């Protein structure tokens, strides 16, 4: 059992009763209990993904709360934070309630809606943050759009401060990214694809750290992809700025060379970067600068991806490949097992003030069981997500979720081979 918050990293039994952790010990028994033999496996707190696009309401052809929840639990996630860029966007309690109702009906993982920072995600006026919070939102973000106005971002950080939840920022200065479709660098120059300079992310990270410091706001940076962004966060945190951040598995695994051949399954925003960035992300994940691994699960169908590169939609799915990719970092010696688990549990829970993320007595019985040595090949055709847009199809990986338990109920079990 690996439970970083409670300092557990060794053989344990854990007893779940009435939807909560009843007891953890070297030897626990209860004759009335159903036994799940997890010998040789990792028993960890239910994984939490703070950045997923469930596409409902409005784009149910790509994903629904139900299909996204199926993908989540298959990937070991017992909780996800659902981004608000739906149609209509989640800038109203009605949309929040719709997402929650769909989640209740799906009855799989916990779904925490994120509310918009600005009305309509237009970046002009503040959304009804208090109303959204009361309806069940756990943070505010305009993701996949940036808040271009520094003035609005400052006001959002300030206004949200007493609400006790983070403002999550998608850092992209649109006047810098312009018509760019991939990272500025040798691959873009060779392929004749318009470049996105790194400053599009880094300059806005710098801006928002200054703003968060000035108003003592609580800031969470979505999908950091540049080495300079990690360095800025490290330095700001040393000064006491209340900032957390996340990195995606595709950003810490692939470089922009994955775009070679105009592969739209390697097109996302922010784009894949250079080897130095992958190294800096890995270092940041290891040393705690980066608080969590979050997938930015972004389903798109063939009509949006099987296109000319510059016209293809940005985004890749990620719920069902996060665990093996995180374990690749463990295998490469970049992360300890405990640190990898923390990035998927304790880290996200703390960053967003969510329950769970640990298996102390009394915690919700959200548990993920991982077989760290299972070898398999990623097959997008077998995804539970409605969409197959992944750059990892065909990749040989090690590490697989065998069971996912939410509130004491098994919501996913990997079929025996």
């Amino acid at each position: 059992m690996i439970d970083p918050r409670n300092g557990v990293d060794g053989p344990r039994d854990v007893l779940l009763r009435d939807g909560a952790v009843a007891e953890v010990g070297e030897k626990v028994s209860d004759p009335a209990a159903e036994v799940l033999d997890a010998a040789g496996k990792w028993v960890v707190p239910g994984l939490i993904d703070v950045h997923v696009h469930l596409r409902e309401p409005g784009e149910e052809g790509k994903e629904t709360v139900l299909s996204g929840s199926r993908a989540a639990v298959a990937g070991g996630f017992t909780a996800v934070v659902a981004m608000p860029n739906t149609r209509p966007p989640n800038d109203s309690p009605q949309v929040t309630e719709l997402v929650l109702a769909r989640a209740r009906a799906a009855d799989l993982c916990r779904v925490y809606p994120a509310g918009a920072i600005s009305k309509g995600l237009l970046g002009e006026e503040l959304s009804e943050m208090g109303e959204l919070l009361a309806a069940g939102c756990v943070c505010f973000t305009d993701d996949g759009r940036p808040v271009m106005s520094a003035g609005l971002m400052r006001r959002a950080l300030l206004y949200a401060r007493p609400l006790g939840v983070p403002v999550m920022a998608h850092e992209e200065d649109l006047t810098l990214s312009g018509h760019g479709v991939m990272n500025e660098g040798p691959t873009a120059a060779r392929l004749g694809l318009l470049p996105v300079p790194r400053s599009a992310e880094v300059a806005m990270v710098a801006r928002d750290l200054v703003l968060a410091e000035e108003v003592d706001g609580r800031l969470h940076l979505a999908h950091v992809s540049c080495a300079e962004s990690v360095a800025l966060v490290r330095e700001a945190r040393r000064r006491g700025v209340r900032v957390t951040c996340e990195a995606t598995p595709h950003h810490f695994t692939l470089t922009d060379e994955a775009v070679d051949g105009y592969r739209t399954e390697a097109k996302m925003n922010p784009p894949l970067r250079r080897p130095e960035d992958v190294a800096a992300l890995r270092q940041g994940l290891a040393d705690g600068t980066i608080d969590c691994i979050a997938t930015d699960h972004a389903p798109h169908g063939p009509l949006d991806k099987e296109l000319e590169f510059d016209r293809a939609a940005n985004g890749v799915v990620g719920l069902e490949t996060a665990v093996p990719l995180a374990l690749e970092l463990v295998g490469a010696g970049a992360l300890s097992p405990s640190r990898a688990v923390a990035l998927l549990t304790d880290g996200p829970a703390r960053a967003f003030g969510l329950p769970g993320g640990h298996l102390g007595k009394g915690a919700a019985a959200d548990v993920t069981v991982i077989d760290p040595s299972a070898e398999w090949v990623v097959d997008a055709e077998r995804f539970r997500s409605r969409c197959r847009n992944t750059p990892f199809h065909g990749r040989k990986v090690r590490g697989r979720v065998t069971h996912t338990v939410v509130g004491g109920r098994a919501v996913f079990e990997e079929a025996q081979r």
Partner: protein
Amino acid sequence: MADRLPNLLAIQGMTRAQVESLLDRAASLEAGAEPPRSLSGKVVANLFFEDSTRTRSSFEIAAKRLGAEVLNWTTRGSSVSKGETLLDTVRNIDAMGPHAIVMRHSSSGAAALAARAARAVMINAGDGTHEHPSQALLDAFTLKRHLGPLEGKRILIVGDILHSRVARSNLRCLTLLGARVTFCGPPTLVPGEFAAEGAEISFDLDRALEGADAVMMLRVQLERQTDALFPTAREYARRWGLTQARAERLPPGVKVLHPGPMNRNVEIATQVADGPRSLILEQVRHGVAVRMAVLEACA
């Protein structure tokens, strides 16, 4: 006939031998009398999603000289106006059984994407800012006729390199043939990353002209002013235009090329374009034979 090729999508990935084989065949086609009617009974479909004067006409004449029938499809008047995608357009034309599709499109990578969807031979007539391989072949052909073997020759390409498929294809083709390429233009339009592909980078035209064996001027799109890539046509012409004064300072054997169309008196002075150093119309003439060699070789 030149060595067989499955497609002509890009110079990148071709060998020197393949390039020289095409150039040799073009030379013998130009020198000889009637070409073999190797495409007799076949259809060559020009699929031009972007406007073109030279390339489309040149491919059409080349195809006809080889005995092919030509379909000329352009976006104007097509169902693209109804939202039909590139892939659907290619699949539908391909279903009519052309032997070859010659395609120009505004997206980089479009040629490769279309090639995967079509049974017909695919010839890239320009895909976005990625490559324009037949242009590079005819430029190399033209340069060889005046400079001899291109080994060690210094070719200067001036202009909006960032957005130029002609620059990319020429860099690769000339480098394959042993030449040394310099890119020159405003820093906002000349990506430093091309140094990794062997190009020298310069932002000073007068300095870059020294020692050049030939100069290729590229059209600057005046619309780029609104993207703050350079301030005005006047400033551009003064700093990176091949003015009459600059041309007069060039040693006698140095030739001037331009893929066309030209903005006269912006990137190139009108007298220079029409002057004794200019090979511009000769490039166009050679384009027909080069494209005949390409069409013959692709099967």
